[in-house]
């Protein structure tokens, strides 16, 4: 009985608004067409490292398992390579829906997303400040905000890049940073995030 209770989701536990949230993104309503064929999971180069495969995630979305989906590390294991989206026979924008799930997890400050989201956040901050990404700052920020000790194992990689003049100390900045920031502020407001 316990095993059954663990796998069966009762209607009252479902978050039926979740599906509407997914439908709301452009092209999101296509998820209705999913036939659970598993082509996405079979094509995904990293499904072996995921908690749930992409096919399972889509079944879970449709079952209203909001918390379980947003707390799954699957969404952060997606490398955005678009292989699933290219092969999906129902033309579901799978990669773009994964992006949306990442956005929701970040917005809700989901605990299990904390480390994985660090890269996106660091990137976002740098670009908002300078207008361009500065890879040197990005690498430092990610290492320091997640696991500073792992920086030791990364040192030879960084050193290799520095000695080959591929990690400049200073980054370049957009001249009209004022204009860019205005665009960013407006888009943030309109994007609702």
């Amino acid at each position: 009985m316990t095993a059954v209770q663990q796998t069966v989701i009762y209607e009252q536990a479902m978050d039926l608004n979740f599906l509407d949230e997914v439908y709301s993104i452009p092209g999101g309503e296509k998820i209705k067409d999913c036939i659970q064929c598993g082509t996405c999971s079979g094509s995904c180069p990293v499904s072996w490292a995921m908690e749930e495969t992409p096919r399972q995630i889509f079944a879970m979305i449709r079952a209203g398992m909001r918390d379980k989906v947003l707390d799954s590390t699957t969404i952060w294991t997606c490398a955005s390579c678009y292989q699933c989206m290219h092969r999906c026979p129902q033309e579901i924008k799978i990669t773009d829906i994964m992006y949306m799930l990442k956005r929701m997890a970040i917005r809700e400050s989901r605990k299990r997303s904390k480390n994985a989201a660090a890269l996106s956040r660091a990137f976002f901050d740098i670009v908002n400040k300078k207008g361009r990404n500065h890879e040197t700052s990005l690498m430092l920020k990610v290492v320091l905000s997640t696991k500073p000790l792992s920086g030791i194992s990364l040192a030879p990689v960084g050193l290799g890049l520095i000695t080959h003049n591929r990690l400049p100390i200073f980054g370049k900045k957009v001249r009209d940073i004022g204009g860019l920031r205005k665009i960013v502020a407006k888009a943030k407001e309109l994007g609702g995030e």
Partner: protein
Amino acid sequence: MRYAYYPGCSLEATGRPYEESVAAVSKALGIELVELEDWNCCGATAYMSINETLSFSLSARNLCQAKKIGDTLVTACSACYTNLRKTETYLAEFPEIKSKVNTSLAEAGLSYDGGIVTKHFLQTVVEDVGLDHVKSLVKHQLSGLRVAPYYGCQIARPYGIEDDADNPTMMDKLLMAIGATPTYYPMKTVCCGGSLMGIRKDVALRLCRNILLCAQQYDAQCIAVTCPLCQMNLDAFQSSINKTYGTSFKIPIVYFTQLMGVAFGLDSKGLGLKDCIVSATEVAARYA
């Protein structure tokens, strides 16, 4: 031939050898690349995780800058390429996104109504310049050089080049035109992990290991790439891969533009070959 050109952030740092070789090869081919004025980051894959409207607005700002120069925008980075094409597609397909993006752009006095065709530099060379012209510039045929043609993921996918998405041949043809031998390479479009190297290193290292292993199995002497992130993951992390998996890979990861430069007999200093971390100079020296 004159094009608007978008280098992207990586080409200013980890991908600097790519930038240098694109410039050198363009000059030889008679392509004039006019850099976008005051361009900004394309958002890469990470930005989309934070805010969609904003991500599209960033690329749209660059597309506005391109409009000032012409109708075709060229970029050599596969991630920038995908983002620019994706933005173009979404703005055309979803009017509500277009309107949000334009409301944002208006804050800086800009607007974008579509119409820019973004091309990867590989396409510019193969489709616009043409392989006949490429062949005519070859001074040193790269005879006997076995090259694994690694396209990576972004360039071949839904927003990518019009080629077979699972088995593209555009770069293969280019490699043959400069006398090299593209090897059989079933990992052509399998992802290298991209930015997962920053958050799931274990996963990215394994993907890169497979890409290197496959090249080794088909006796490739080097891997040719079209994307700065693929290059960095396979090149700068090759020693980490060897350490993790007990392998002894020593496979140079070169940009297709660097190989073109060698075949054209261009000065190797201007091709950034010495800045590959796994040394590519021995491979190049044979044809100098």
